[in-house]
C-alpha cells in the first residue's frame, strides 16, 4: 500500500468521523413545541390570575393539566420522528436528549413535592412560583451543558439568558407579573433557539 493511498483512506475516514461528530442537533422540533406551549400556558396563567381573562382561579388546574397532556402527546409524536433522523445517536444529540430528560424529571419531582406540601403540609399555591425559577435555571444548565459538549457553542447565549431569567423569576416571586414575564421570556429562551436549531439542521 502506498502512502498516498493510505492517506486517502485516512482522509475518507476522518471526513466520516467529522460528519458524525459535527452532526446537527435534532431536538429543535421538541423545543419549539414545548416553547410555544409553555409560553402560551404561562401567559394564560398570568391572564387568569390577574383577572384579564375574567375566569375563576380553579381554571389554573385545567390549564396546567392541559399543558401536560398536550405536551406529552406532542412529545410522543415528535419522538418517533426524531428517532429516525440520521445522527440522532451522535454524542451531541445523546447529551442534549439526556440533559433535557433529566431537566423534566427534576421539574416533575419539584412539582410532586409542592403538591405533597399542599396536601399534607402548609404549602400554598405560591410555591409553584419556584418551579418557574427552577425551570429557567435548569434550562440554562441544559443549554450550557449541550454547548460545552457539542459544536453548538452559540447555545451558551440562551443558557446565560435562562440563568438571568432564573434570577429575575426569584425576584418576582409572589408577584402575578412573574407569569407574564416568564411567558414572554420563554419566546426568547426556548422558541427562538429551537427555531435556530431547526434552521441549522435543515442547512446540513
Amino acid at each position, binding site marked *: *500500500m502506498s*502512502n498516498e493511498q493510505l492517506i486517502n483512506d485516512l482522509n475518507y475516514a476522518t471526513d*466520516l*468521523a467529522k460528519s*458524525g461528530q459535527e*452532526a446537527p442537533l435534532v431536538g429543535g422540533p421538541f423545543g419549539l413545541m414545548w416553547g410555544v406551549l409553555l409560553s402560551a400556558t404561562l401567559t394564560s396563567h398570568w391572564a387568569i390570575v390577574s383577572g384579564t381573562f375574567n375566569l375563576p382561579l380553579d381554571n389554573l388546574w385545567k390549564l396546567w393539566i392541559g399543558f401536560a397532556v398536550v405536551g406529552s402527546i406532542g412529545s410522543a409524536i415528535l419522538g418517533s420522528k426524531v428517532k*429516525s433522523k440520521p445522527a440522532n445517536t451522535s454524542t451531541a444529540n445523546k447529551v442534549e436528549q439526556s440533559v433535557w430528560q433529566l431537566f423534566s424529571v427534576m421539574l416533575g419531582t419539584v412539582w410532586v413535592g409542592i403538591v405533597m406540601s399542599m396536601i399534607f403540609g402548609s404549602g400554598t399555591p405560591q410555591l409553584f412560583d419556584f418551579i418557574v425559577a427552577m425551570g429557567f435555571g435548569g434550562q440554562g444548565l441544559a443549554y450550557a451543558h449541550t454547548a460545552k459538549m457539542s459544536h453548538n457553542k452559540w447555545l451558551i447565549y440562551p443558557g446565560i439568558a435562562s440563568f438571568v431569567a432564573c434570577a429575575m423569576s426569584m425576584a418576582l416571586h409572589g408577584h402575578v407579573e412573574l407569569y407574564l414575564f416568564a411567558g414572554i421570556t420563554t419566546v426568547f429562551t426556548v422558541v427562538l433557539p429551537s427555531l435556530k436549531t431547526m434552521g441549522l439542521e435543515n442547512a446540513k
Partner: protein
Amino acid sequence: MPNKSSNIDIDAIDEVIHGRLRLGIMAYLSAVNPASFPELLSKTGTSNGNLSTHLSKLESAGYVTQEKGFAGKKPQTLVHLTDVGREAWIDYLDAMRSLLPTQ
C-alpha cells in the same frame, strides 16, 4: 521494522478494520453510535450488498453488532460499535500514528 519514508508495512495494522469501507464504518460509528443501516449507506456511499459484507466481517470480529428491529412499522437495522470494537479502533489509530512518517 516498517519503512517510514515511502511505502508503509501494514502488518502491524488490524486488517479487520483496515480497508477503506470498514475504516469508514468504524470512523462514523466512533462518533454516531448506533447508526442505522441506511444512514451508513448514505454516509459511506457504497452499495447495500457491499455494506452488508463488510459489516459481517466487522461483526465476526466482535467489533460491531447488528440489531434488527422496527422503527414504527418499518424494519430497521441498527449497527452498534461494541466496547471491543472501540478498543480496536483506538489501537488501530495508535498503530497508524506510529507508522506514519513524523514531520
